[in-house]
């Protein structure tokens, strides 16, 4: 939570001035009874109507100045709370952007979205109200107590005790509500997740005719949310009546004490009226405060959820730049590298060693779930190795700055994801300042130029989120172009030709071989045809590299490779014949 307050520093001025102006307004309100007293004592007493008019105008003036103070205060409060939350949102998204892959795997998108949206809204409302009432309410409450002390010192104990009991009740309810509000937000995560899933998986859900079942699941989750909301609602609904009862108990005590004192001539009737009025003032203020406290509790609970994400430690991102490679040095070298996913039962990559020289093409093949993607993800440092080392350009990848490392690598991920925006915007993801020529060159090499030309507006063609308005193969080719546009030193194609037909796949590989900047290419694939001409092929099986070598060597030495090849060769032979 402390972390959060740091973001308020920038709005220090506003967060101090806001409550201060509110305080001024409250002070002005104290003058009102004095003016009324003057009307009664001087105006009516002397029958001086012009004086009464002047005083009435003074009341209006006081109100007007109060209006000015109050508007200023509201402005500062709004500015501080809205600004604070805007910063916080920025910071949280920046932090999420730097979370490690492992954290991204475990956290889940739904909860991050609620934290970025719903939780932020609650914090904003809470802070805004707090800034408005922060100084005012305690001022009025303690002010009333002090005034009561001057009227009759002995009653101070009643006031003191009342305030104490009230604090216990208020904080008690706050403490009880806090975990429940957290629960509410957690349930909201679940509800949000279902909405997202049902949008993203609409086809599958409908294909299986699961709409009714989904509605039921949603209704269940929604009910769960409502139950917790109502539970916390019931608890916070206690706050108002409890304070009311406590204050009235105090009033009874006060009246009783007052009556006895008046009987013994220790107090006047007027003083009892004054004391009663002070107690009523506290009551009125407390009712407002009760609302504030409920809102505050909610926003503290939400703030904690935000802070929890902000407190997840980040991977070290700083480090050195990638050096120019000296002759004869390998571009990538894995030395007994192993890796295990968080929460997984076994290693995804076990003790893999190989070297890739600059400009070489390395094929990686193996069964489903054999660790191919995991293996290449170690190269661009998506995950840290759990044992052994990964070196790029002669240095351990962990020593590079993440930006420098990833700037040199062109990655085509397995899942062809694109952003909402133009094709041009999407290509510029690969290189910020890419020129038209660079973009078209990349598109040509990715076999994507033809279909882009046919689209309305060419490079300006608008893509829906995730490129939903493109076919699977078109998406894949754009993701390849996106990686090529930066002319990377290392190119990683993670099974990224799966949706391409053989002809396109072959043309693509021909283009890659002809690239004038000769990147080191890693091709993860299912098809032996894609890597037969690779300089080296790594055969993965259950996390282990069971064979490393050229196509012919592996055919001779590696049974797994032979089997894979046979499964395809047989097929192709059959189709040929």
């Amino acid at each position, binding site marked *: 939570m402390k972390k959060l307050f740091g973001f308020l520093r920038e709005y220090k001025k506003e967060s101090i001035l806001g409550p201060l102006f509110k305080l001024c307004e409250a002070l002005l309100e104290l003058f009102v009874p004095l003016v009324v007293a003057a009307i009664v004592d001087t105006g009516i007493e002397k029958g001086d109507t012009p004086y009464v008019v002047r005083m009435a105008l003074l009341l209006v003036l006081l109100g007007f100045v109060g209006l000015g103070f109050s508007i200023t205060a509201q402005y500062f409060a709004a*500015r501080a709370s809205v600004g604070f939350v805007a910063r916080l949102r920025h910071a949280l998204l920046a932090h999420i952007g730097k979370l490690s892959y492992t954290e991204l795997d475990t956290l889940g998108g739904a909860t991050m979205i609620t934290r970025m*949206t719903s939780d932020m809204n609650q914090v904003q409302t809470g802070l805004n109200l707090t800034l408005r009432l922060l100084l005012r309410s305690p001022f009025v409450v303690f002010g009333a107590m002090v005034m009561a002390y001057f009227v009759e010192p002995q009653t101070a104990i009643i006031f003191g005790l009342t305030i104490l009991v009230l604090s216990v009740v208020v904080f008690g309810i706050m403490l009880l509500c806090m975990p429940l509000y957290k629960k509410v937000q957690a349930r909201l995560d679940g*509800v949000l997740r279902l909405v997202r899933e049902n949008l993203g998986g609409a086809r*599958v859900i409908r294909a299986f005719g699961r709409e009714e079942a989904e509605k039921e699941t949603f209704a269940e989750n929604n009910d769960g949310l409502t139950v917790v909301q109502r539970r916390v609602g019931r608890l916070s609904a206690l706050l108002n009546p409890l304070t009311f009862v406590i204050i009235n108990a105090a*009033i009874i005590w006060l009246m009783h004490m007052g009556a006895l004192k008046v009987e013994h001539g220790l107090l006047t009737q007027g003083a009892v009226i004054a004391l009663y009025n002070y107690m009523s003032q506290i009551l009125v203020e407390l009712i407002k405060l009760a609302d504030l406290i409920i809102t505050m509790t909610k926003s503290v609970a939400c703030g904690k959820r935000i802070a929890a994400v902000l407190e997840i430690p980040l991977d070290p991102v700083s480090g050195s730049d990638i050096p120019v490679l000296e002759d004869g040095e390998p571009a990538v070298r894995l030395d007994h590298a192993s890796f295990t996913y968080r929460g997984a039962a076994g290693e995804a990559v076990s003790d893999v060693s190989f070297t890739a020289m600059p400009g070489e093409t390395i094929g990686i093949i193996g069964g489903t779930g054999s660790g191919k993607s995991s293996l290449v993800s170690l190269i661009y440092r998506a995950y840290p190795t759990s044992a052994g080392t990964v070196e790029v350009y002669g240095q351990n990848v962990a020593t590079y700055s993440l930006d420098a490392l990833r700037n040199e690598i062109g990655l085509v991920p397995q899942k062809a994801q694109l952003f909402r925006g133009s094709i041009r915007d999407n290509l510029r993801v690969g290189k910020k300042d890419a020129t038209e020529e660079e973009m078209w060159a990349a598109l040509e090499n990715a076999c994507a130029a033809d279909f882009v030309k046919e689209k309305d507006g060419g490079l300006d063609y608008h893509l829906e989120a995730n490129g939903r308005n493109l076919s699977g193969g078109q998406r894949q080719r754009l993701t390849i172009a996106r990686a090529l546009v930066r002319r990377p030193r290392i190119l990683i194609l993670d099974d990224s030709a799966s949706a391409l037909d*053989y002809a396109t796949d072959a043309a693509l590989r021909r283009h890659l071989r002809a690239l004038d900047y000769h990147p080191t290419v890693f091709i993860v694939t299912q098809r032996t045809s894609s890597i037969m001409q690779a300089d080296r092929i790594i055969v993965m099986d259950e996390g282990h590299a069971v064979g490393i070598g050229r196509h012919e060597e592996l055919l001779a030495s590696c049974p797994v490779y032979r089997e894979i090849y046979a499964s395809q060769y047989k097929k192709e032979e059959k189709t040929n014949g």
Partner: protein
Amino acid sequence: MADKKAPRGTLGKVLRHVRRYTPLLLLSLLLTAVAVFFSLYIPILVGNAIDVMIGEGQVDLAVVGEMLTKVAVSALLSALATWLYSMMNNRITFLVVRDLRNEAFSHIERLPLSYIDSHPHGDIVSRVIADADQFADGLLLGFSRFFSGALTILGTLIFMLTIQPIVALVVVVLTPLSLFVARFIASRTYAMFRAQSEARAEQTALIDEVIGTGKLIRAFGMEDETLDAFDKTNEKLQQTSLRAIFFSSLTNPSTRFINSVVYAGVALAGAVVVISSGGIAMSVGGLSSFLSYANQYTKPFNEISGVISELQNALACAARLFALIEETPEQSDRENASLPAARGEVTLSHVDFSYVPEKPLIRDLSLAVAAGKRIAIVGPTGCGKTTLINLLMRFYDVRGGSIAVDGKDIRTVTRHSLRENYGMVLQDTWLRYGTVRENIAMGKPEATDAEIEQAARAAHAHSFISRLPQGYHTVIGEDGGSLSQGQKQLLCIARVMLCLPPMLILDEATSSIDTRTELRIQKAFALMMQGRTSFIVAHRLSTIREADTILVMKDGNVIEQGSHEELLARGGFYEKLYNSQFAVT
């Protein structure tokens, strides 16, 4: 912004949703009246008690005692009533919002795919989550404050009229001014709250995208660019929020100012009445209690005016939620027109289709598939293969012509029964947060463990599933978590293997699966496909070759169809495609 004011309709719709809880609402109203009555009664009781404390030795302790007992009882009754009505308001609010969310969700399930495909999901999510939330907050505040405020006004008004009708008239005439001001401000803030909601939704859409593509953003080191794009929406949201919050918070100080004018008016009128009548029409004490009532009277006005501005936000959010709920759903199915277990004869006659009317995609496509045939669809990417699947599954309706299964136009049977007849595996795997078992049992939740394992074995997913930490009960994260793409596909295949529907649609179903496993799965599929009509989109030639009919598609049209041999012999586009694929390896 075209609509500056809350459309009247929204309020009406809200009220329609509240109507279900009318008895509860009436009870809550009654309890509010009780609570207000007793809380207003207490000052009178205390006043009576003070009246008998005249001075030393002149205190009637018996009366004081009696009054204080009454205070105690009143306080308890008022507190009890307050507690009860708060809980009822809680109940009404949360249930109304729950109903709205359920309604919105049910509606999402009925929205046409075209809507879901073309609207940012984050925007829809924002409506169901954030807008509903804000609406609940506003509604709750409205309920709790509006009643008690209105009743307090009524109560004090009666008390004032009994003291001095002329001065009371000043109050009655002046106070509505504050309501007028509140309304004036509120009607202007509605547009601002709407803008805020829209900015929020826009931002949520971006957040949704950023979080969905988190790894990609990291891989391309484009965190900064993303953040820049986010900052733009953030700045917009900050501005719209600041305006909405600030302007709506003007209501309270403004009405308070009006109230102080009222107060001054009462003081003036009262003092003049006292002076001119020499204290007969009204005493000094009367004026003082009058002033305190005037104060009490105006406070609820403050609250109500505050509520009015809160309600603008609530209504702006509700309007967005209702807009989603009222989005035209898919044409409803004819009732009881379910397609029985199909033989699998599929006929397309003169089908026209396009996603956007200006750009025709499929034109005059006719095709007859006999039951149990295996149809392979080939063609360059983007030729309309996926569109054809969209039409077969009736995710989209044809614009012209018709599609029939077993001679029945698919528009005349329920979508549910049509889709039940298809087993579909798409290239884009979709898995949900849940256990492996839940994901496989999607189409048949009542399946036994043995059936599920059998399906997983057929899909060759069993061995990797059994290596997961908790086997079939391992919870996989959103969108499959850290499973490999191939493993996700295996699970999607297992899902279909479990259901065994009479027709199959496989769109690049095995694209990320290694060929050895694929061969084995293919065998399982071949077994499955016996007697099942199947549509297969694939690039692997073995699959294509073994099909009964190959449809060659190009630019949305089937340009050739026939068996592998026929098509090769014809020497058309297929032959070219085929040869080009083998010319280079």
